[in-house]
């Protein structure tokens, strides 16, 4: 009898805890969306920000965030892909592999502010790239590499060894088999991993404050020559992203409608993460279907 009473109480407590957590999480999401979505308008999403007056937008920051994301992915994906392939396909169990695996684990657990400071020291100061999109993209690459590498490795690992044997038995090198058989088969989950990591990169701020900088100079959206200073594509211009913008206007406290702008920008970030999550699953499924469907 007593055990049954305890069981009832415990189950009740668990319901309460889960209920509380649901409440907290729902309130959090609700608060962001309810406070932020009303601020969203075409003007808000496209207009440049205003430092001292109300009514500014987040256009440049939004563009910067996406541009930075794309550059980061362009740099980090090939490296993570290579490293993931080596770890899963070639690495033997020896001191070298163990050391590198440990290094990757350590890199993934480093606080992003430390990664950002390292980027600041090495890229911004020593290599003299200044506060720029490129510096930011490199810092974000360092931040992104360990997770992306592991996700690539995991995706490759889930492909059956039978496929590798099949390639070997035909006289194909491991590299050919990996490139043309294993990678295509692993593509759905690799894409899912990439898009999920994109969500993480999109919202990162601490690594960017001292690399991509905290200013968003006006851009001329008619000028697409990456060598011009006002061109949106110039990778050497300083570029405050959306996440950095939220932090900055709140810590400076000079923008009169900082709370409203932050609320809107937070909603945009959360919606973006939501979209990345949905996109990741959807893309993975679509690619998987295309790969396995009868053509």
């Amino acid at each position, binding site marked *: 009898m007593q055990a049954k009473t305890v069981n009832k109480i415990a189950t009740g407590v668990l319901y309460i805890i889960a209920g509380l957590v649901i409440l907290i999480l729902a309130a959090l999401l609700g608060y962001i969306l309810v406070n932020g979505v009303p601020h969203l308008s075409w003007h808000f999403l496209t207009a440049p920000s205003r430092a001292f007056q109300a009514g500014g937008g987040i256009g440049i920051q939004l563009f910067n965030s996406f541009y930075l994301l794309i550059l980061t992915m362009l740099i980090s994906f090939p490296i993570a892909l290579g490293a993931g392939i080596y770890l899963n396909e070639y690495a033997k169990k020896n001191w070298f592999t163990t050391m590198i695996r440990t290094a990757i684990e350590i890199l993934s657990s480093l606080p992003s502010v430390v990664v950002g400071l390292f980027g600041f020291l090495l890229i911004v100061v020593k290599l003299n790239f200044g506060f720029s999109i490129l510096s930011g993209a490199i810092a974000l690459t360092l931040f992104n590499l360990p997770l992306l590498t592991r996700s690539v490795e995991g995706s490759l690992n889930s492909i059956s060894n039978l*496929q590798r044997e099949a390639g070997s038995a*035909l*006289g*194909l090198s491991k590299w050919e088999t990996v490139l*043309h058989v294993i990678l295509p088969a692993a593509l759905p989950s690799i894409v899912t991993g990439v898009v999920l990591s994109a969500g993480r990169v999109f919202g990162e701020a601490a690594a960017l404050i001292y690399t991509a900088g905290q200013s968003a100079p006006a851009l001329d959206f008619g000028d697409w020559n990456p060598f011009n200073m006002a061109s949106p594509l110039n990778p050497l211009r300083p570029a405050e992203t959306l996440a950095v913008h939220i932090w900055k206007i709140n810590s400076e406290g000079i923008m009169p409608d900082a709370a409203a702008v932050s609320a809107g920008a937070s909603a945009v970030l959360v919606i973006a993460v939501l979209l990345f999550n949905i996109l990741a699953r959807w893309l993975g499924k679509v690619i998987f279907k295309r790969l396995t469907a*009868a*053509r």
Partner: protein
Amino acid sequence: MAQNTPLNTEKPTRNIYQFGEASEIALATKNLHVFYGNNEALSEGDLQFERYKITSLIGASGSGKSTFLRSLNRMNDNVATVKGEIMYRGLDINSRAVDVYEMRRHIGMVFQRPNPFAKSIRDNITFALKQRGMKDKEQLDAIVESSLRQAALWDQVKDDLGKSALALSGGQQQRLVIARAIAMKPDILLLDEPASALDPISTSQIEDTLLELKEKYTIIIVTHNMQQAARISDYTAFFHMGKVLEYDETRKIFTRPKVAITNDYISGNFG
């Protein structure tokens, strides 16, 4: 039964068939030893395989027959240490001087579980050829057709070569895999229990295919199925605890084995 009777001293403990001068040897092993770590899984595998014949490797699980087979085209390179010589066309292909990928084009392999690529039926066959630089579409099409015909699969799939190979049945997949292997025009085909994962009908189809293939290929097949060995092979080697105890013409092995343990095995006393 035979296990309990003391070994007849007149019966030899080993009986290895000696090929005459006239027979053409496609592949031969000399003093082959395979180690997994410090464990010796196979020792003194000294066997010769005659050209255009089917040779069965039989024996209980763990007897070393699969290990032996996988060593023949160096599929064991990264898993085990293989010592000794594997002579093919006057070369020791176990030596590092031999290009392993090139060698495997001539000594192909089919595995226990069908392993088609997640590609179309056509691409399964043409993929490796394309990687080796064959681009001519007509030539590729011709090879697709001829190898599928040889594997007795052409009539069933000729209308949907673009279909995913994964949509085929297990038996069809295994024949596709055989077609894929012979598309490379190998000299020798190694098969590791190719029918053990299949139903009886598919099994007999595969056996028919193999009997036709031996006109052009030297075939070495590992099998658990004694009847299968008896049905299709010309020679049979019996593996026991990492050694070949008996190697002879198949009909002799299955009717009058010279080694007592072979008799025990084929009459089902262990294994």
